[in-house]
């Protein structure tokens, strides 16, 4: 079966609609079937619908995503309660260990993102992976720093990512790869991204899964949960009313 590819982290400046249109057109021409961009929690439904319409015109699927960067565990819980039902993908940007641990064990979190390139500020170790393996959270790896960093900074990042990905693999935590770019010049074809990810000591199939199967599974699972008839995993309302 033909693989379909997803990039769950495009950064689009909606104030510059021509740039957003250019980036989305480029993503479609490079072979992506599903894209997503992080919205702020205050984003209106209309803005999301507009972007969904643009993507549909380009024959791409669009998933709404929110990135939250809470300061404390309580703040994380508050944001999840408020936002989980509004967005198809919830990503927690982990800026401290307390938030990282809570995010890893909360089943409402889809993605764990560690955006710092400094290994001391990345908290994806075996304890984090063990917590994430019993919830639904996946580890997000961004390609942008791999493209833009040079020299020793890139060497250190490659070593850190290689360690994180191998821990994730050991604990069966899904890993997704996304671009995290804002310009079309930094967009790459899915198979090129898979080649870049193979620098993290991964075989080709695992690398391709990170940009196709794994992100799709997250979106499909959440769409089912957000659909009207959903009761619990595997249980849904098929008919209601007097004739049941």
């Amino acid at each position, binding site marked *: 079966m033909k693989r379909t590819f997803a990039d769950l982290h495009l950064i689009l400046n909606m104030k510059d609609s021509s740039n957003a249109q250019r980036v989305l057109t480029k993503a479609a021409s*490079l072979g992506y079937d599903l894209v997503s961009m992080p919205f702020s929690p205050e984003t209106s439904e209309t803005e999301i619908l507009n972007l969904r319409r643009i993507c549909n015109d380009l024959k791409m699927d669009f998933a709404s995503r929110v990135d939250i960067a809470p300061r404390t565990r309580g703040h994380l819980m508050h944001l999840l309660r408020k936002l989980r039902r509004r967005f198809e993908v919830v990503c927690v940007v982990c800026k401290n260990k307390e938030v990282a641990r809570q995010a890893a064990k909360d089943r409402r979190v889809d993605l764990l993102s560690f955006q710092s390139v400094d290994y001391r500020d990345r908290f994806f170790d075996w304890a984090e992976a063990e917590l994430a393996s019993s919830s639904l959270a996946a580890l997000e790896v961004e390609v942008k720093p791999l*493209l833009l960093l*040079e020299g020793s900074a890139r060497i250190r990042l490659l070593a850190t990512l290689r360690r994180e990905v191998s821990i994730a693999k050991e604990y069966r935590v899904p890993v997704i790869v996304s671009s995290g770019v804002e310009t079309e*010049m930094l967009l*790459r*074809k899915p*198979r*090129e991204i898979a*080649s*870049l990810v193979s620098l993290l000591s991964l075989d080709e199939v695992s690398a391709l899964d990170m940009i196709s199967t794994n992100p799709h599974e997250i979106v499909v699972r959440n769409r089912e949960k957000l659909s009207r008839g959903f009761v619990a995993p595997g249980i849904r309302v098929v008919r209601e009313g007097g004739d049941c």
Partner: protein
Amino acid sequence: MKRIKHRYLAVEVDFDGMLTQRDFFDAMWASVTRLYGEFGASKTGLALIDFDEEERTAIVRVSLAMLQQVRAATASITRIAGREAAVHVRAISGTLKSLRDKAR
């Protein structure tokens, strides 16, 4: 001695302005060397077969054993001759004839 198998890659370059063959191939070598070092680069068997300045397309030959590594190095090119650029692989094949058919 075992025969070295090759693959041919048809690539296209996203670049604003005039792009010369030399600039393109220098960027390819620089990227391969940055990622894998001189020892790794020596194993790629990288060679430029064809370059079209107007279409900004090229055909390069690489050793089959290093194909994935060269693809990664190609993807990691972000600048050519000091300007923003991106190199995308359009097609890969074992023979030039079928590569040209695929890339058309």
